[in-house]
């Protein structure tokens, strides 16, 4: 037990360090001009925005046609831009009084910066990695909070007399409800404000769940590690000093609802972040990182939560740690996160901005998506993937016991390895897709590999799958047909 506790503490320190490294990297990774820009609340004060400020719009007509598959900046959509809001449709004029900015056969357009007279080409900025780090860290935090008590539910359930699963259910229901709102909110107030406000909301939720009593040094001297000791501590919770470390159950519920409402703003925005900040050869990788980093949050919950939340003071300290780390991430986000770069990173985004098209309401978009050829197939693949990873993650302990891995720490480490594999696979395979755009081939290959690798997870007896370390208990509850 002592060895396990020591190992658990080591893992706690390791995981906390990883989270802090992400936050520090997010905070310090920018150059000084971007830090200066981040302190200013409006994009006009961004040094690169200043370069664009005097731009005035004209439209060039009758430019030479382009050759498909080649890149010639003179054949880009040729506009000059107004200073305050270069993407505002109202500021776009042209010399033939045609207010529709869509190109036609005779008018090949491109962007021109009137200050330099040069064509504006898509470009990427180092700031994009800070954007990605912020969103990934927020996604990590949101799922860490969601599954915070899943690894050691005994303490939580004894103290609050409610199941940890009900807390996760509450979180997920709020999450789904908020998913219906996130599109319209982002369209209305922008990505930057939506993410920053959600980060603040999540931080408030964390502090409501933790309170501030966990700082009390007198009440934190008790250390219990066994279930019986936890039960004893919980039984005395109403009158002991330990109980004062934790907030009452309604505050935990309210805090969880706030975090659940905030999470979709980190879950649903990775593709738009990729589109706004990353080149077309980086989008799949950046989306994979931001979208899958919540898996690291789940792994963190199991490793750190399993090690810390073994008694009432430990649970209080655990909630307090989450609140502190969440606060640091939120401060970094408020400091660093920006709306969009001065110049779009890809021709498609450039074209989209110039068109001035406003996003329709969410439900209208949904109808349009399902009328788009191939959308339902990509949706099916997405649902298949998320279902498999969720189910395997939910039953990880039982699955590992089938193969003979029964020690709790080993199971937690195996679960963490699974979550890390998801992130690593996303980065590696996403990078390949970025280079080749072979979405279909890669998806089919991944599905085939998924079929192959699922099989051993279900093998339970006889020669294959049952390790020599398996306990008899894992065999006894198998029901043979």
């Amino acid at each position, binding site marked *: 037990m002592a060895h396990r506790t020591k190992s658990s503490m080591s893992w706690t320190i390791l995981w906390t360090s990883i989270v802090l490294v992400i936050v520090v990297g997010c905070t310090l990774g920018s150059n000084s001009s971007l830090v200066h820009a981040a302190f200013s609340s409006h994009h006009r004060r961004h040094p690169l925005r200043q370069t664009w400020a005097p731009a005035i719009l004209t439209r060039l007509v009758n430019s030479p046609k382009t050759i498909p598959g080649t890149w010639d900046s003179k054949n880009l959509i040729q506009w000059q831009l107004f200073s305050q809001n270069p993407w505002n449709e109202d500021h776009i004029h042209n010399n033939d009084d045609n207010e529709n900015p869509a190109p036609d056969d005779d008018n090949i357009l491109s962007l021109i910066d009137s200050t330099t007279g040069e064509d504006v*080409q898509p470009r990427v900025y180092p700031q994009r990695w800070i954007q990605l780090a912020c969103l990934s860290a927020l996604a990590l935090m949101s799922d860490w909070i969601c599954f915070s008590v899943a690894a050691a539910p005994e303490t939580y359930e004894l103290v609050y007399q409610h199941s940890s699963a009900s807390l996760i259910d509450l979180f997920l229901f709020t999450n789904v409800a908020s998913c219906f709102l996130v599109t319209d909110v982002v369209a209305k107030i922008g990505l930057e404000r939506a993410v920053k406000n959600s980060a603040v909301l999540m931080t408030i939720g964390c502090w409501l769940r933790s309170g501030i009593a966990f700082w009390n040094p007198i009440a934190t001297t008790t250390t219990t590690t066994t279930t019986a000791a936890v039960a004893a501590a919980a039984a005395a919770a109403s009158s002991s000093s330990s109980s004062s470390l934790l907030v009452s159950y309604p505050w935990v519920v309210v805090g969880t609802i706030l975090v659940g409402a905030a999470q979709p703003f980190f879950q649903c925005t990775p593709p738009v972040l990729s589109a706004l900040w990353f080149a077309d050869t980086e989008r799949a990788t950046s989306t994979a990182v931001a979208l899958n980093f919540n898996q690291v949050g789940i792994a963190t919950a199991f490793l750190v939560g399993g090690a810390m939340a073994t008694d009432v003071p430990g649970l209080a300290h655990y909630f307090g740690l989450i609140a502190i780390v969440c606060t640091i991430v939120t401060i970094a986000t408020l400091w660093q996160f920006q709306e969009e770069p001065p110049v779009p990173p890809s021709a498609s985004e450039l074209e989209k901005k110039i068109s001035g098209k406003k996003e329709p309401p969410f439900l209208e978009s949904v109808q349009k998506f399902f009328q788009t050829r191939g959308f339902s197939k990509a949706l099916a693949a997405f649902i298949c993937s998320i279902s498999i990873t969720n189910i395997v993650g939910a039953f990880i302990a039982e699955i590992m016991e089938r193969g003979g891995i029964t020690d709790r720490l080993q199971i937690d480490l195996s679960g963490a390895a699974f979550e890390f594999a998801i992130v690593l696979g996303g980065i590696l395979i996403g990078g390949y897709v970025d280079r080749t755009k072979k979405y279909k081939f890669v998806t089919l290959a991944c599905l085939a590999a998924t079929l192959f690798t699922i099989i051993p997870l279900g*093998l339970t007896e006889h020669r294959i799958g049952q390790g020599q370390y398996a306990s008899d208990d894992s065999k006894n509850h198998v029901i043979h047909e």
Partner: protein
Amino acid sequence: VFFLSFFSEEPLLLLMSLIGLGMAAGPIQPINAELSCDITYPGDETAVESVQQIGGNMISALLVPVAEFASRRDYLLLPNNPLLESDIRGDCLLLLTVAALTMAYFSTFDAPLARTMADRRSGSDPSTIADISDLLPSKISESPSPPVQQI
């Protein structure tokens, strides 16, 4: 089968499969999120991802209790082969079925990659696209990506 028998009697097989599953199944999400944004271009990327998250969370929430029930069922594999005789849990059969059906359905995917074509064509002139087949996934990788300035 040889691979499986090679790792028999060891938890190593399970661990390797788990990591392999993570590396194979995990990337499907972001790749298809990007694919959906590509084919619905110039649609709203946030709306695309919201639809996928809602669908994914709802379906997986429905599948969890089904998988829990199925995990208590056990089915024999190759009962007449003493070397390879084994059995498999119902939850894994459920996941296999889901993956196989998805693979069959997705194999018919052949939608144009509108956003990638917008990136690859140097002008924004739709008339320069000679054939609709140029927009299809099988053709798209043949076109070079334009240079992007690094600031």
